[in-house]
């Protein structure tokens, strides 16, 4: 599946604003809503992502067609990373663990902000490191 890369940057900007609001208010409900948004992107694809739909309805008609399309796998991977941090944050806030919740939410905010402002590709940085660590430990256990 191919997507408009500008929509993806727009989504990251909206995500950043939502996560800033979560940190300022400490609202676990708002973070849970953002986690649902991440989950939709991961499990149903970016075509169904709420912020992507907002972009397609409101922003893209004013911009014209994209110069080029991108594969959706890299941003979908990033949505998965965002989901993990958001769930950790929701758990923290709802259990009254302030600092763990703030730290997890801050990581999600940092990644979304880097994506929105710098076009940072989380999959490029993390995927290989994760892959390098996991299969090695598994293969070493096999005699």
């Amino acid at each position, binding site marked *: 599946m191919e997507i408009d890369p500008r929509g993806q940057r727009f989504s990251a900007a909206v995500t950043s604003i939502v996560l800033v609001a979560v940190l*300022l208010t400490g609202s676990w409900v708002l973070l849970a809503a953002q986690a649902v948004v991440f989950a939709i992107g991961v499990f149903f694809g970016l075509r169904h992502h709420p912020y992507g739909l907002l972009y397609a309805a409101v922003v893209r008609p004013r911009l014209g067609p994209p110069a080029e399309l991108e594969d959706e796998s890299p941003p979908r991977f990033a949505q998965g990373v965002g989901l993990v941090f958001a769930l950790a944050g929701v758990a923290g806030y709802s259990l009254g663990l302030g600092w763990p919740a703030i730290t997890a939410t801050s990581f999600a905010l940092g990644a979304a902000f880097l994506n929105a402002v710098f076009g940072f*590709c989380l999959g*490029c940085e993390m*995927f*290989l*490191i994760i892959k390098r660590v996991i299969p090695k430990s598994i293969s070493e256990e096999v005699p």
Partner: protein
Amino acid sequence: MSGAAAVAVTLGLATVFGLVHRWRSGRLKEQDVRAEWDFELGERATLVQFSSAFCAPCRATRRVLAEVAAMVEGVRHVEIDAESRLELVRELNILKTPTVLVLDASGRIVQRASGQPGKADVIAALGRV
């Protein structure tokens, strides 16, 4: 209160990290590493690109390197799926994709870039091979 501090710290650190990352990404650095390859080398040089499924700039990098290989005589472009060659990835200590290696005619690694290198930089690097 602590939430506002976290926002300030996170956005500050992310901005610094983003600027440094942008500056370093795609820069070719000189190397001198012997390596064995299981593919045919270019007569003059080979551009080896490590890619992965979750890598947005890998596609643009492929296009740049393919253009350079088509333009410069004796240069080959080889793309390797990092996930399927993890032993090689560990051996060469490749941490992210895309990573681009410039090999000389004997297969020795003479340049290396993490991130998408500029077309002019790749051509300049080939001039030094």
